[in-house]
């Protein structure tokens, strides 16, 4: 098994892990994190496809590499928007139930 295939399997596994987190984690923030994990697995797939197609003295096919760069920036923008949404939602709902959550903050750190 060569390096490209190894990382490819890693990417496939990461897609599975990220998808699992996205489905099962109820917390929005954790969902966003899982989405990023899933995304990076997909990017790795692009990476091994590029690596596999190394030719013409290049270490990899530059076309998928360029696509990954574009996709990483888009994923970051998506993350920023999702986090802003989560926080605004927290602000809106948090004002209604400030009393109930103060007891839980200490517990979480232990």
């Amino acid at each position, binding site marked *: 098994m060569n*390096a490209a295939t*190894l*990382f*490819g*399997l890693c*990417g*496939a596994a990461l*897609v*599975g*892990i990220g*998808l*699992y987190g996205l*489905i*099962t*984690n*109820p917390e929005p*923030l*954790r969902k*966003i*994190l899982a989405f990023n*994990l899933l995304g*990076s697995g997909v990017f*790795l797939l692009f*990476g*091994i496809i*590029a*690596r596999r*197609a*190394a*030719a*013409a003295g*290049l*270490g*990899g*096919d*530059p*076309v998928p*590499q*360029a*696509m*990954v*760069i574009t996709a*990483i*920036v*888009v994923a*970051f*923008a998506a*993350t920023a*928007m999702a*986090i*802003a*949404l*989560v926080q*605004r939602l*927290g*602000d809106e709902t*948090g004002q209604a139930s400030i009393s109930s*959550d103060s007891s839980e*903050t200490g517990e*979480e750190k232990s």
Partner: protein
Amino acid sequence: MSIASVFDVALVALILTIGASAILVRTAFAAVVMFVVYGLLLSMAWVRLHAVDVALTEAAIGGGMTGLLLLGAVARSRSVNVDSVRVGYPLRLAAGALCALVAAGLAVAIFYPPAPVPTLAPMVMENLPPSGLGNPVAGVLFVFRALDTLLEKVVLLLALLGVWSLAPDHAWGGTPGLQVYARPDPTLIFLAQLLPPVGIVFGIYMCWVGAKDPGGAFQGGTVLAAMWLLVIVAGLQKAPAIGRLWLRVLLVTGPVLFLAIGLAGWVFADAFLAYPAGYAKPLIVAVEAALTLSIAVALGMLAAGPPVRAQQQ
């Protein structure tokens, strides 16, 4: 097994473990820390895949900026703790099975590559010389698939407007809610005074070197954005109000220049987004320089979040 493959196996094992624990670990803070570590590991994987351009982007955006965003979010969501009702066991099992199926399908798909692996690398190298660029990835981004790159800048602007749209009405045009230090911390101020000059030089270097070596507008822009955020967080400078004209102008400078050069190509090179022969390299470098600034501002403002305070007149 060569030493290199030992390294690869160890790296993959580490990535998978850290990735899985980022999903499974109990507290959100631990998960985010895992994710930051994961981002660092991933940029090593990209180096091993001979994709240094991507490694740079991943180190800067995937690990650095996304980590910063998530850490900030975790910090704020602690005071408003979300009650984490776990999904039921049967559902988790079903989800696990589904995800395993997807992963297995992908694994099968990549395990059997097509017999002659199709590649555009020779075609890229053949057509790269007229543009004067030495970095094939930059060639793809700014010459062959320039339309994608241009549209992606618009995506960035829309995402920023989307983030801003989450502001309360009265705060529109005001300053973002990026959390800054309550007390000036001398250590942090020291860092915020010393690191940015270095970072800015490196960011400019990234942008400049991108024409011939790995690097470019994205990577350079991200470094600049990070330095800007550091200065703001340390309290040395205030985050700008989103209504500021200079901010808006900086945001669109890159895309506008890109679009203008693309339209000029219509006149001088008879195709939209074509570069006139002999002028390709200076034009691309100009576009990259302008984009670096615009990306820096856009990423920085994206990370800073929606405005929360009305601007003091």
